[in-house]
């Protein structure tokens, strides 16, 4: 994943509250390999139409609520969306977004922007601002997620640096809490004891 700091692009309103992950991508498409692209599945079964070329979506509260399906983010990203602006987001969705280069920008008054959206908006990740509306709007974003988006960081690489600390923790944790290690099946057959299979 490559990082980014500013983006200028076409903005569109998605004037709905509670746009959940099942609306973002219906479950039946999720067995598709990612390499085939998920953009065509975005909001597939809904009446919502996002103009081609849109890169910034301005939506209502509780955007991306529901399931942990990262495919909801893939659908947005593959469609070309770089940022979603909304008053609030589902927690898991926001984490998934930041892991895929998609900005979940929290602006409490996002809904008031719907009738007055200009053709283009500019987002500055480092400054935490949205411009293009005549005024400068500030968005909030978890610091970790901001860093991840700016640097295009990959968590697995970051965590690899802590391998020694993790190994030490593991040993200590299992020593202190031996019950935390799964016991083997009681009868070793792979089946629960006493059950008639």
């Amino acid at each position, binding site marked *: 994943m490559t990082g980014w700091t500013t983006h200028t692009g076409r903005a569109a309103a998605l004037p709905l509250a509670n746009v959940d992950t099942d609306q973002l991508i219906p479950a039946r498409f999720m067995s598709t390999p990612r390499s085939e692209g998920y953009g065509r599945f975005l909001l597939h079964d809904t009446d919502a139409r996002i103009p081609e070329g849109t890169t910034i979506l301005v939506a209502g509260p509780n955007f991306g609520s*529901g399931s*942990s399906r990262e495919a909801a983010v893939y659908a947005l990203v593959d469609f070309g969306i770089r940022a979603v602006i909304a008053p609030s987001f589902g927690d898991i969705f926001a984490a998934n977004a930041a892991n895929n280069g998609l900005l979940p920008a929290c602006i409490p008054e996002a809904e008031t922007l719907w009738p007055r959206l200009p053709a283009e908006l500019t987002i500055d990740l480092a400054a935490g601002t949205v411009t293009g509306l005549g005024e400068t709007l500030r968005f909030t974003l978890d610091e970790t997620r901001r860093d991840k988006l700016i640097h295009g960081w990959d968590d697995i690489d970051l965590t690899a640096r802590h391998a020694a600390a*993790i190994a030490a923790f593991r040993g200590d944790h299992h020593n202190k809490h031996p019950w935390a290690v799964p016991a083997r099946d009681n009868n070793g057959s792979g089946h629960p004891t006493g059950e008639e299979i």
Partner: protein
Amino acid sequence: MTTLLDRLWSAHEVLRREDGASLLWVDRHLVHEGSHHAFAKLDARGLPVAEPGLTFGVADHYAPTRGAPKDAAVARMIETLAANTARHGITCFGLDDPRQGIVHVIGPEQGLTLPGLQVNCGDSHTSTHGAFGALAFGIGATEVAHVLATQTIWQRKPKAMRITVEGQLAPGVGAKDLALAWIARLGAGGATGHAVEYAGSTVRGLSMEARMTLCNLSIEGGARFGMIAPDETTYAYVEGRPYAPADMGRAVADWRSLRSDADARFDREVTLDAAEIAPIVTWGTSPEDALPITESVPEPRSDHARAALDYMGLTPGTPLAAIPIDRVFIGSCTNARIEDLRAAAAVLAGRRAKVPGLVSPGSRLVKQQAEQEGLDRIFTEAGLDWVGSGCSMCVAMNGDSVAAGERCASTTNRNFRGRQGKGARTHLMSPAMVAAAAVAGHLTDLRPMLNGRDAA
């Protein structure tokens, strides 16, 4: 001053970064067919699974409930899971395993879920496992790949919220009603950013099955975590499970400290009176669109509500108990455990359903137990289909779905548009309420049907 959340968090925190994100150790990682994206990410980097012994797989999201998969894409998903887990040396409860079932049912059932553990799964209802006093939360595919590769997860500590429920639940009212009641009050995003601890005499009085239903639905109120301090009910449930600790005495001695101090401070406190809670149904397309069955379809006060009523084909002022249904579904990780099936069967015994429906037990072992108790005959004699175990009509990935425009009374967790199939209209409610709706052919208050029968 310490909360249960604090205790669980610090017990798993490997380190905390300057920006406040914690690196948490993962005790149990559960994967399912949907984890294929994560395995692909791992393979793309040529990485092994760090802790195959702490990772368990199960086929559930795409599992067929009748015979073999009919659809090639569905069959491929299940085969991919089997291949990925086998290649990495991960135990998998696949389609040929008698322990197969829904991931959040079999984790506890097998004794993989225990108090004091940190449990992750690429599914938002992982909050279910918090019912044991575990730290448990759902994660996305990139995070699943991270856990596979490192057995750790980066997570910022959520705020602590406590929902205290005191008093006696009325007959026919249970954990599902309790959960929908708080979500209706606080909203579907009401607990976003929080870990919810459920407490109070009502919660203490709940069985493990009911506690799991309550914690399961935390995410529908926006909370990624739900939890309940373990007690004798918890230990009794865990004892004797296949993967339960050999030395239960030692484990229980440790687990007794897993609670919030009497003077613990929560960022948010909510109190509910159990006696005020009635059987609840949803009328809209978000779990927050919920009301007692004695009410009517509300006048819409927002664009969301107007759109929801339009999608659901409902008119304001219609009594909820007058809404006709086309089918019922009893299943899912929310309400397909043995107690749920017993509650539904108690209402259905000796009665006929006016509409068709599916009953899908949460696991094969639940199915087996239900059959030993004769519950399967009650369902089939009522005219409902008794099928295999899996996510089935909760998410409509395996081919079980509700047709467009059809209205389904369902024990599941999401009434989102299209969740049970394109154009499907879902009403969420408890298993006993679904059973009552099946008998009546419309949504209905189960209480007059109880008549001395025992259903909660």
